[in-house]
């Protein structure tokens, strides 16, 4: 799970990067789509989102939703 290098799975880390653990999968999917289309501006997420298909984004989103 390469995403957790920046988006922590645990709760003990201080970071300005949005926490994804426990977030609703559909929210994560919507944001990833917005990054990919350029609808939402970003520093790096636009560049990363373009590397994932819809199905892959859904898998990632479901995994994060399942984390605490």
């Amino acid at each position: 799970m390469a995403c957790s290098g920046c988006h922590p799975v645990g709760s003990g880390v201080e970071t300005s990067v949005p926490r994804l653990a426990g977030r609703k999968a559909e929210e994560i999917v919507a944001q990833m789509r917005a990054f990919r289309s350029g609808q939402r501006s970003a520093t790096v997420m636009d560049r990363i989102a373009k590397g994932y298909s819809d199905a892959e984004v859904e898998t990632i989103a479901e995994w994060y939703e399942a984390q605490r």
Partner: protein
Amino acid sequence: MNGKRVNRRQFVSVSVAAAGSAALCCAPAIAQGGAHVVVIGGGFAGASCARQLKRLDRKIQVTLVETNPTFIACPFSNAVIAGFRELSAQRFTYEKVAADGIALAAARATAVEPGARIISLADGQRLSYDRLILAPGIDIRWDALPGYGEAAAEQMPHAWKAGEQTLLLRRQLETMEDGGLVVISAPANPFRCPPGPYERASLIAHYLKARKPRSKLIILDAKDVFSKQRLFQSAWKELYPGILEWVPLSSGGNVTSVDPNTNTLVTDFEKYRANVANVIPPQRAGGIAERAGVADVSGWCPIDPVTFESRLQANVHVIGDAAIAGAMPKSAFGANAQAKTCAMAVVKLLRGETPLSPKLINTCYSLVAPDYGISIAGVYHAVDGQLTEVPGSGGVSPSDAPRSTRSAEANLAEDWFRTTTAEVFG
């Protein structure tokens, strides 16, 4: 195959073996039900992989072989050199790793017998394994640059492994008089942390500009192109005009020898007598890779991009800087991503299942000044046996971004460091 498995599980727990003899004694009861995976090297790749294995399957016995009681992280060590961060912020222990139920073996791995699946440690222990994961990082190629060697590095530090070398370079900069010349030599590809020499040059230039403004820094480069080049060069023009000069290969930047007695770096065209010389020499995979027979003639380790299993030895995986990971750069972020992917593959392989073809990410931040960050990102997948960048993904920070973006990326760099070190060591 199955008949052999029993044997392979006859491994020795670290505590038992420490009291025992050099012979491979057997304590099969300890291993009951769980395969034994040995990880050599406790950095961003190895420590992460060991923990991920335990998280994925508690029954797997994991031993982490690492000689240093503390890990000293390289990312952000350039800030230590430039004097705005302390080395203590780079130190991490293995307490939490051990608390996960991972056995720590604090001895150097001296030999690997891939056929018998046994490794030998310098303290006489022998460990048998079902799967071995090598994460040895880099070694300096002491024979690659005439005049350079371990003794020369005490005068002309490489500071490419964080620790005493980092502090030595910092002290040299601190004691240098204003008006001095700092020279950094950057090696040809591949090497650990491709943007690292240029971040270092930037941050040293930042220090010189503030503290020793009559000084100058020259980068002598064995390359004509480098990571995040346009972003670095435009920032240098803006922030460090007249202080920082880059000499590419085509302008005679290739350093052919050094003389530590006179602190001189020699190129085909000129001799540079430096007040402070930072020689970043050519590198190769950490020594155990060669001893295990997983390094090729390049000095690095070819791997399968799905499982990170060595192409040269079965049941041995190589992750992190030591691996030839196709388009993925040798970075801490990449090493951590590879570690988690490899752990998932190894768990599947131990269960006789087929590993999933992974997607990996790399995101590397570099500081050009303490409040000026730039990044490169990439998403990678396996295509025709190679880790290849997913078309249309990745790239560097925009060249026309406002200073607010640069400062946001400087903060994100620190956020990444905190999150990743917490994941690996916390």
